[in-house]
């Protein structure tokens, strides 16, 4: 119960029903892996506003992160969405479906202990192996499809950020000029730490910096971004057939994670102000 109870102990204790997953382990397991499923132990989920931001209450207990910190989020809409995730669990809590909660936990705990510069560097590094820049030469139908679908996105990014990116069919990938990387570094620096965690997550899911920026700038929808990321798979599916338990499963999971990441970034970086204009008679 390390996320719901507030003992003074600092090390998260392994939950008794968790089948063999120890958080800190000489047994060599992953150090930051919560149990996959557990029974729902609360009736009501509600939100309250504390000093650091918005908190989630499961019955009377306050939600905590896996590292036993108090779960606080800066945005009310994000808190509501997280509360909805917890409330929509039926008999068992399926953590693998609670993407927003996971993202918030990552932002709060920072288990990889990276600072802003390191996160940005990791994100921009993806540009060297960006999916939309890697082209095939064979089969020609796929090469054509890549050209038709991916060229417009690259063109948009080049225009929007005033950079040169290009694409390549060589195994080494495109040659990204340093000025392009610097532009993206300074652009990403304008986001706060939470939003950056989200951006880096989306990039890792889509395997493309360009698609992620295009999504975050609201140039394309989540469904379109996922489609473009999986372009070759979609081509092969259309050619050889769809396998529901693999293809659709992966598609839904990728869509869910990407949507969660995008929503997370937008909710963490927005500041909505309502200006009331006086009616002029």
């Amino acid at each position, binding site marked *: 119960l390390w996320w719901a109870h507030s003992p003074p102990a600092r090390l998260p204790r392994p939950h008794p029903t968790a089948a063999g997953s120890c958080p800190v382990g000489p047994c060599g397991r992953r150090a930051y892996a919560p149990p996959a499923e557990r029974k729902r132990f609360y009736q009501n989920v509600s939100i309250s506003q504390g000093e650091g931001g918005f908190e989630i209450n499961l019955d009377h207990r306050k939600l905590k992160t896996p590292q036993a910190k108090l779960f606080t989020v800066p945005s009310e809409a994000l808190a509501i969405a997280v509360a909805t995730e917890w409330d929509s669990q039926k008999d068992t809590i399926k953590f693998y479906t609670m*993407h927003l909660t996971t993202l918030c936990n990552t932002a709060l705990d920072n288990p990889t202990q990276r600072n802003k510069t390191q996160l940005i560097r990791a994100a921009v590094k993806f540009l060297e192996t960006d999916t939309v820049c890697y082209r095939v030469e064979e089969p020609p139908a796929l090469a054509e499809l890549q050209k038709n679908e991916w060229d417009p996105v690259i063109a948009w990014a080049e225009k929007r950020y005033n950079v040169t990116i290009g694409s390549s069919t060589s195994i080494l990938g495109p040659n990204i000029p340093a000025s392009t990387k610097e532009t993206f570094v300074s652009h990403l620096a304008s986001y706060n730490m939470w939003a950056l965690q989200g951006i880096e997550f989306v990039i890792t899911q889509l395997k493309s910096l360009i698609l992620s920026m295009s999504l975050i700038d609201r140039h394309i929808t989540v469904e379109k971004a996922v489609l473009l990321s999986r372009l070759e798979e979609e081509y092969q599916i259309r050619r050889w057939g769809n396998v529901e338990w693999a293809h659709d499963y992966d598609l839904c999971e990728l869509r869910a994670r990407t949507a969660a990441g995008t929503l997370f970034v*937008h909710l963490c970086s927005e500041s909505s102000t309502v200006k009331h204009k006086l009616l002029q008679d």
Partner: protein
Amino acid sequence: MAALGAPLRTLRALLRELRHAAGRSYRDSPAYRHVLAAFRADRVTSEKLCRAQEELHFQAATYLCLLRSVREHEALHREYHGRGERSPQEVAGLVGFRLPQQPGGKG
């Protein structure tokens, strides 16, 4: 910008997803009320090309995608991957064998 379609359609689909997620008292859930309030607040704007409207619509569409994909993913998981491992008896039965009965326990 992103091809999103009509905001009303997105709103209706989103509310339907929230209904699936919440269960009985979906109308009192904070998410339902927040979404409705946000859309209502956005209607009272005098600008024709309201950037906040477009932002809200995009967020709503993204949240809709999230809820829908999570539901579909869970359904696929239940159908194809939810059964767990077979017991030793079942595995033996696959090839027509039966496990030996040892009433006194092993050795």
